[in-house]
Every structure is written in C-alpha cells, then in structure tokens.
C-alpha cells in the first residue's frame, strides 16, 4: 500500500519555542553559517517559526506559525527544476535529489513558502563538531538546494524495518525530528492515506486550513487554527 505522508500543525498548541528548529538541525546535518553569513541571508532553517504581530501595545498579539516544506501535491518547485532534482516520489514526498541539483535556485524562487535553502558555500563543522553529524543524512556541498524532507531517512528506516518484520507501520511510531521534539505535540505526522491515522483525522478538522491554499499547490500540511476562548456556557 502506498503511503502519503502528511502533517498537521496545531497553531493553538504551538508556543513558538523553536525546539523543532534545533531538532531539525541535529537530525539533518544542517550547517550553521555564522554571524557574517547569517547577516547576508544565508542562515538555513528547514523549519522556521514565523512570528507575526497584530495590533499595537497594549492590545497586541503575536502569532507563531511553524513553516516547513509543505510537500505539495502540485509543488511549484518541482516542474521548474531542469534536472529533476525536485520531483514527487512514490510516497507523495516532494523529494530533493542533492546529486542531481546544479543550483539554478529556480525551485526556491518558485516555492511560494520560501522553505528551500541553498548551500552558498561548502558547509563546515570545525572539529570535532563533525562527530555529531547524523550518518543517515548526506552532507550537501556548495551549490546545492536543500529543504525539509519529512526526515525521509527515518521514513525509509521505518519502512525497511516494517517490511522485514512483515507488518504495517503503526501510526505515530514514525515521527520526523520536529514532531518528536515538539514539547506541546503541536506537530502530528502520519499517513494521509490511512483515514484513521491521527494526521488524517486532523486534516479533516474544521480548524484545518492550508497555508496559501488559494494558490492551488495542495500542500500536505494542515494548519489547525487557534481557537478563541469562549465562556464554557457559550458552547
């Protein structure tokens, strides 16, 4: 049976703590670029927590919204790649094949979510920081585009394991690093093809919206909007 990996992000639960950001760095060998390059817009965060202020003091609000690759069904980034580095894989993932990438950066421009990041230089890990690198994830060289993979290495490992044990993957057993770290469990990951999976149920939630839904990219991440507090009697 084919999987269709998806995610639900509960904005009502997200506190903006950014545990997901560090988790992603640790899992996916994302380099830190340093102050100089960061000031030139080269910092890489496959997942970021967008913060938006509303109103002004004292009637001010601040919204957080984690944004990562939306793994769109009709991903605008894929078709524009001349080398098929970006394409849709059999699990519905928006795959990025680093070896095929020649660095036109067109995908990053076409991506309406700006979740693609580019290796402007060869990444460096001063020794012995390199000992932390995850051997399951390749290092990307200069000139290569990269982005959230839904921790495809974990998906592959879990699928292999399940196949070896001749069983189906259990919903919730497989999590990308961000979902695993999230202290409030705001990020739920799973198989959208399984109508009973948590993520599929959340995708049907009345609170569910898609980011930039009107652009028609059909993202596979559902954002569950914040609920206002009501007097319980009002229910």
């Amino acid at each position: 049976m084919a999987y269709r990996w998806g995610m639900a992000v509960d904005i009502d639960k997200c506190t903006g703590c950014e545990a997901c950001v560090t988790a992603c760095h640790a899992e996916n060998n994302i380099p830190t670029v340093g102050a100089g390059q960061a000031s030139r817009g080269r910092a890489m965060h496959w997942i970021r927590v967008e913060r938006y202020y509303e109103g002004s003091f004292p009637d001010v609000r601040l919204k957080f919204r984690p944004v990562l690759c939306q793994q769109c069904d009709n991903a605008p980034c894929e078709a524009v790649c001349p080398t098929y580095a970006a394409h849709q894989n059999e699990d519905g993932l928006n795959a990025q094949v680093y070896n095929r990438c020649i660095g036109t950066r067109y995908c990053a421009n076409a991506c309406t979510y700006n979740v693609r990041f580019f290796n402007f230089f060869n990444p460096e890990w001063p020794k012995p920081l390199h000992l932390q690198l995850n051997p399951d994830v390749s290092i990307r060289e200069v000139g290569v585009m990269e982005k959230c993979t839904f921790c495809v290495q974990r998906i592959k490992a879990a699928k292999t394991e399940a196949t070896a044990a001749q069983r189906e993957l259990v919903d919730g057993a497989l999590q990308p690093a961000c979902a695993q770290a999230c202290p409030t469990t705001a990020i739920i990951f799973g198989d959208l093809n399984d109508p009973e999976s948590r993520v599929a149920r959340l995708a049907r939630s009345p609170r569910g919206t898609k980011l930039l839904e009107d652009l028609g990219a059909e993202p596979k991440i559902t954002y569950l909007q914040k609920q206002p507090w009501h007097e319980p009697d009002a229910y």
Partner: protein
Amino acid sequence: MKAVYGLYDDPHVAQQAVDNLRAAGVADADITVISSEPFDHFEFGHRDAATHMPWIATAAGAVGLVASYYLLAAAQMSWPLVTSGMPIVPLWSNLIIIFEMTMLSVIIATVITLLATAGLPSRGGKMYDPEVSDGYILVGVENPTDFARLEPALAIPGGRVKRVES
C-alpha cells in the same frame, strides 16, 4: 577549364551581352553572369529565380514538428518522473520546445538548401575574375564549344573580353 567572358561596367551593357549570347545560340543555362551585387531589376538578374526552397523549408518544419513531439515524448516516458502533478507528457509545455525545434528545422533546412543549390562551399576552378569585386559584371560561358562564335557576341562597347584556355 576553358572559358570566355566579358567584363562590363554597366548592367545595361551586361544585359546586352547576355542577349547577344542568346542570339548566338547559347542556351540560357550555359550563360553565367557573375556580379558583386544582385541585379534584381535586370532580366539577367532573375533568370533562374525559381526555387523550391520555401517548400523544402516548410517540409523540414513539418518534419521537425512531428519528430520533436515524439522525441520529447520518448524522452519523458523513458523515466517517468512526476513533477508538480503534471502529466508525464505535458502538451502545453512541450509545445514550446516543439515550436523551437520546428523553427530550427526550417532555418537549418533553408541554409542547407541554399548551400546545396548555390554550390557552396566550392573549391574554385570555376570561371571567375577578381575584377568582379571592383564592380564589373562578368558575362561568359564556361567550357565553350566555339570561342570564335562567342567572342564577338561579348565584344560590345563598354566591355572587355577575356579568354581562359588552360
């Protein structure tokens, strides 16, 4: 190569020389006029203007159109990767490449036809006189059967007759 030709300063005189050669019984196809510029408005300037070049170009375009469609489709189906939810062989975007390939076929076919029908490139050894580049118009006959008959036809005022016998 043997040849006899006259060099004329004035296209009107050259036209007269051509007419004289015809009168002398030389077939139109055997009369060669060489000039450093086209003379569209003189009779000698468009004696063999008729050409199939436009038809060849059109046909090449048609071939390019069909061939590029199938080449694209074959390439796309050889490793069918899905991008952006588009069909494996998407006609809309393929049309652009098909168009370019069609036009490229037309252009290349035109140039090949030009080279073939104009005898280019050629290695020389044909009737020619560098004075043509100074503006003279050369009217002559290559490998004539009878020099004596042709020289008078070419020798008209405003022209010089040359004979090549080698």
